[in-house]
C-alpha cells in the first residue's frame, strides 16, 4: 500500500458537498472544532478525528441507527476474542491480571477499526489518511483498508505475495474481501462472540460451491468421502505464514513496541479445536499465532500463568485457496504424508501441553493408499 503524504491524509475532495446524504452536514457537526475561526491552530481546538470511535451512535447512528445499534459488538471494534483469549491465559492473581489487561489495552487494542476507519479513512493502526478525499466509501477499498491491517498473513496469502506461492483463486477472479465478508458480518449483530468463526454471518464456501456434492460435480465422490472429515482449506490451501514469540514493551522514550521472532511458511493439519455443528470437520488447517508465555513480561512477570489453557496452533482459514494443491493432487499427497500433520515434534516442548488437543497422534494420520489416483 502506497503511503500518503501528510497533506494527502487530510485533503477533502470538494465533491463531498454534492453527496446527497452527507454533503449537507457541516464538518463541525461530526468533528467539532470552530468552523468560523480562520486560524487553523485555534479552529482545531476540540476536533475529534474519528467521531465514530468509540461510540458511533451520534455521528453515524443518527441516520444509520440499525447498524450503529450493534456497532460495539462488531469484532473490528470490540476485539473481544482477543480479550477473552488473553483473559483465559492470564494469571488468576487479580493484580497480575490487571497489569496484563492494561498492557493488552495499550498494545493489542490499538488495532481496532470503526465506521470511519473503514468507510472514510484508512485505519489509524496503519497511520490513517482519508480515502478518496473523505468521499464516503460504501465498500471499503480492499488494499487500503482490509489488507492494510490484515496484511502480513491474509493479505500476502490472498494477493500471492509469498515467494513461490500463487494468489488465492478468488483474487484471480477479481473478488474483493467483501464478496465473501458481507456487511452483516463486519457490522456485528449484538452477540458477543468468542471468536470470529462463530459469527453467524461469516463466509461459507458452500454458499457458492454447493454443487461440489451434486451429480454435475466432477469430483463429487471425493467431496463426499471427505465431507465433515476435513475442512475445505485442508485440501485447497497452500502453505501459509506462522508467527512466533510476540513480546511487547516500551522504549526509553516511552513509545510502545512489539517484537516477533520471525515467521515460517508451513502447512499444518491439526485436530479441529473448535469442532461444532457449524464446523464438524475432524481435521483443519492450524496456524501458529504469535502469542508467547512471555508476551507481557515487560509489564508483569508470569502474566500468562494459565498459558496452557489454549493452543498456540489455532484453527485457520488461509486465504490462498487453489483448486489443485500439492496435497490434493493425488491421494498420497495427503494420505501418509506425515509432514503435513501437526505432531508433537513440531511443537515447542514447553507448549506441548497447550497444544495437546490439536496435535495429531500418529495413529490418526491417514495411511498411504495403494490407489493413488484422484478420481
Amino acid at each position, binding site marked *: 500500500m502506497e503511503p500518503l503524504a501528510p497533506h494527502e491524509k487530510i485533503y477533502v475532495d470538494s465533491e463531498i458537498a454534492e453527496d446527497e446524504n452527507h454533503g449537507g452536514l457541516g464538518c463541525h457537526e461530526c468533528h467539532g472544532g470552530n468552523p*468560523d*475561526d480562520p486560524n*487553523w491552530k485555534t479552529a482545531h481546538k476540540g476536533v475529534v478525528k474519528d467521531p465514530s470511535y468509540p461510540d458511533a451512535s451520534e455521528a453515524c447512528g443518527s441516520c444509520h441507527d440499525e447498524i450503529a445499534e450493534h456497532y460495539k459488538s462488531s469484532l473490528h471494534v470490540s476485539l473481544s476474542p482477543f480479550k477473552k483469549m488473553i483473559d483465559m491465559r492470564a494469571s488468576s492473581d487479580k493484580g497480575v491480571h490487571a497489569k496484563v489487561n492494561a498492557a493488552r489495552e495499550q498494545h493489542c487494542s490499538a488495532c481496532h477499526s470503526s465506521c470511519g476507519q473503514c468507510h472514510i479513512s484508512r485505519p489509524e493502526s496503519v497511520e490513517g489518511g482519508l480515502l478518496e478525499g473523505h468521499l464516503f466509501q460504501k465498500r471499503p477499498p480492499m488494499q487500503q483498508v482490509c489488507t492494510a491491517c490484515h496484511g502480513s498473513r491474509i493479505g500476502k496469502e490472498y494477493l500471492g505475495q509469498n515467494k513461490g506461492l500463487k494468489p488465492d483463486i478468488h483474487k484471480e477472479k477479481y473478488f474483493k474481501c467483501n464478496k465473501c465478508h458481507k456487511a452483516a458480518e463486519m457490522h456485528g449483530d449484538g452477540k458477543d462472540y468468542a471468536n470470529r468463526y462463530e459469527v453467524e454471518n461469516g463466509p461459507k464456501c458452500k454458499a457458492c460451491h454447493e454443487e461440489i456434492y451434486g451429480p454435475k460435480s466432477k469430483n463429487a465422490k471425493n467431496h463426499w468421502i471427505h465431507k465433515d472429515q476435513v475442512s475445505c482449506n485442508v485440501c485447497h490451501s497452500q502453505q501459509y505464514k506462522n*508467527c512466533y514469540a510476540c513480546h511487547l514493551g516500551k522504549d526509553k522514550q516511552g513509545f510502545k*513496541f512489539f517484537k*516477533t521472532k520471525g*515467521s515460517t511458511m508451513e502447512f499444518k493439519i491439526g485436530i479441529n479445536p473448535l469442532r461444532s455443528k457449524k464446523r464438524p470437520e475432524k481435521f483443519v488447517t492450524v496456524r501458529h499465532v504469535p502469542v508467547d508465555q512471555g508476551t507481557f513480561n515487560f509489564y508483569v512477570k508470569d502474566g500468562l500463568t494459565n498459558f496452557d489453557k489454549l493452543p498456540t496452533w489455532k484453527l485457520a482459514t488461509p486465504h490462498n485457496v487453489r483448486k489443485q494443491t500439492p496435497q490434493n493432487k493425488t491421494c498420497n499427497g495427503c494420505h501418509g504424508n506425515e509432514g503435513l500433520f501437526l505432531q508433537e515434534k513440531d511443537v515447542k516442548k514447553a507448549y506441548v501441553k497447550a497444544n495437546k488437543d490439536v496435535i495429531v497422534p500418529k495413529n490418526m494420520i491417514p495411511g498411504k493408499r495403494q490407489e493413488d489416483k484422484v478420481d
Partner: protein
Amino acid sequence: MKPVKFAMIIVLALTISLVLFYGNQTARSADKENHCFTCHTNARKLIKITREIAKANKDKPGGSAETEGEG
C-alpha cells in the same frame, strides 16, 4: 401618476436592497461556515500547513524504532 411612480421606485429600491442584504448575509454565513472546507479542499494550503507542522515536530520521534517483525 407621480406618487404611484414614486411608490414603485421605493418598492423596487426596497426589494433590491433586501435581495442584496440577504444575499450578502448568506454569502457571509457561507463564508463563515466554510473555513474547514475551504482549507481542507485546498491542497496548496494543506501542504504549507503540514510542512509547518512537520518542521515544528522535527525532533519529536513518531514511534518506537524498536519494533521488529511482522504484526
